[in-house]
């Protein structure tokens, strides 16, 4: 039972972080109809800048600066590249984002090298324990922060004028534009929010029990991708559910790998994709995605 509860807690906390990243994918997709592959490098940029700046200006200012910097980088990508290619086929845009990702990632990996940069979280490696079930304080705080941000985002999405504008432009861009909604501005704001969310996720993903900032932190974003897809790429609620599902599946598959031996060693690594494919086979638009209707 202890093992189950530990894995559950770990899966949920990991899932909350995946949900934050997946939310970024979804917002960008809704606002600019781009499947953005830049998230891995944006995440790493956030982690890298927070780690580097912490030495000079202290933890909290570094977090704020890191989040701002990542949001700014996302904004620049949107303005300089995505906005100019508006109307290009979805596939071309996705491939352009892969290109941007590779450029940014290569530079970051070059800077990080083989070092492991540490972010001096004030809570460090401390843990929180109820009986035999323990979790690092970092993950606990991460879950709380992710929860608050996700709720705040849902409220903003539903009630703020930006949220309404974004939903309108996602529903029908042309009509929204005719109604006076500035698609460019909606899209830019979406990229800024997605960049900031990635940086916040990065802040916690490089704390205990994961090591500091290393090139491998990048791959976490790739795991959030199936979360976004299985939730439905255009559904914010789906991103949340997808993130939690992937986090739990990964935690249980790794923790019970002896019981799952018939599936082969290392099943935990492929489980996000197995879950994604299984869901898509049953619901091709994802759990909460909008079904595309085509009249013939």
């Amino acid at each position: 039972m202890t093992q189950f509860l530990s894995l559950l807690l770990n899966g949920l906390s990991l899932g909350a972080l995946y949900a934050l990243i997946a939310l970024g994918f979804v917002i960008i997709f809704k606002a600019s109809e781009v499947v953005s592959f830049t998230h891995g490098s944006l995440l790493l940029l956030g982690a890298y800048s927070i780690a580097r700046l912490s030495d000079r200006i202290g933890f909290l200012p570094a977090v704020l600066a890191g989040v701002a910097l990542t949001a700014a980088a996302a904004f620049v990508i949107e303005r300089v590249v995505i906005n100019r290619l508006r109307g290009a086929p979805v596939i071309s845009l996705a491939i352009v984002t892969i290109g941007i990702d590779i450029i940014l990632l290569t530079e970051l990996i070059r800077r990080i090298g083989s070092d492991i940069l540490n972010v001096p979280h004030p809570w460090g490696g401390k843990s929180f324990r109820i009986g035999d079930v323990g979790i690092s304080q970092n993950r606990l705080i991460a879950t709380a922060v992710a929860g608050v941000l996700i709720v705040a985002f849902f409220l903003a999405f539903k009630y703020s004028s930006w949220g309404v504008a974004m939903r309108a432009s996602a529903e029908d861009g042309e009509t929204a534009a005719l109604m006076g909604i500035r698609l460019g501005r909606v899209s830019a704001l979406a990229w800024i929010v997605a960049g900031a969310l990635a940086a916040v996720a990065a802040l916690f993903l490089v704390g205990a029990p994961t090591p500091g900032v290393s090139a491998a932190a990048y791959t976490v974003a790739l795991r959030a991708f199936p979360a976004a897809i299985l939730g439905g790429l255009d559904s914010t609620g789906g991103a949340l559910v997808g993130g939690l599902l992937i986090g739990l599946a990964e935690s249980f598959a790794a923790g019970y790998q002896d019981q799952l031996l018939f599936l082969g060693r290392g099943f935990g690594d492929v489980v996000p994709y197995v879950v994604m494919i299984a869901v898509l086979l049953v619901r091709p638009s994802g759990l909460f995605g909008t079904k595309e209707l085509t009249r013939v």
Partner: protein
Amino acid sequence: MNQDTLKRGAAVLAAITVVVAAGGCSNKAQDSGSSAASGGAGDVQTDIGVEGTTISLGVLTDLTGVFAALGKDITNANTLYWKDNKVCNTYDVTLNVNDTGYVPQTGVQLYSGMKDSILAMQQTIGSPINTALAPEYTADKIVNFPSAWAQTLTEIPGTGVVGATYAVEIANGYDYMFKQGLLADGDTVGHIYFEGEYGANGLAGTQAVAKKRNLTVVEAQIKSTDQDMSAQITQFKAAGVDMVALTVAPAQLASAAAAMQAQGLDVPILGSNPVFAPGLLQGPAAEKIKKDLYVASPVSAFDAHPDLLKEYQAAYPDATPSLGVLVGIGMSEIMKQVLDSACDNGNLTRQGVLDAFNALTKVDTGGVVVPIRGFQAGTSPSLQSFVLQPADVPGGATVVADAFEGEFAADIAG
């Protein structure tokens, strides 16, 4: 055969030079047909990579990729070593340093660019690059020293793994743990290992020891990109492990230690040599790592070689030296003994160097690297390992057990 037995510690570099100068090789005259080198080299036969009294060695290292810090340390140490040492007291050695960025394709291209000008390879970083170049090294009769310890590398002719293979190394680590009372017969051990050759080789060591000492092994295979070891540690805790073994990279060690702290799994950790990096001692799991980590290693630490550290810091004042420096010095010293021996035989051709390499039966590097028993295909070049523990010192670790052969080593070594 030129065997220099040097005192440990102080003035290793200087001592090597003196010993070689005093008792080293004489340039015996050889049969006719040799292309005699000019200068003081006498009638030593040469072909590729020797110009006058200068030998050119290749270095394929990583100065900009993921192993850049390690690559810099090893390469700096190679350079420093050859600044102070000559082959046969006659030949200067120059290094042709190339940066692969840890990309095998780049490594293959760079090698083809320099292969007509080098006698042998002082260093090739990275198992993937070594494996990619294995057919060419074999065809070109290249003697090469990798900075990896996988069993498969011992199968490549001319490639000299600098110490015990991962399986032997971790088995020696187990021996230490048993002797210190940190592990007992019939205990349960959790082993996290990378998929691929490195992890498989480390796991093989654990399995061999488990069979002999009736250990129960809980295995957890991961990818090198996995960052969070919480689930694996939860699994180990549920299984009631008495020790955690790691054949992973520093990132996963940091995560495993943090997760053990969080979940209250208070047992020792035994690691293969690549798990440790000094940077870990600044991270959140530093205390746990300092208290409970034991690393089985083919190289010593700076506390046993303070003069090497001093010399390195004087030459590279801006560097933060890691134990890669000792690997670099050790592999250069072994190369020197190979080249001295070839020169002694009057044959500094590639074939001559390869023959000298194959004929080595004992290599002593003055305690920098474990004693090497010779390079036979498919067998571990050494049966010995050091055991290190992390500490707040340059290089990040101190020696807690000098080079020794554990009871399981001979059976596993092949």
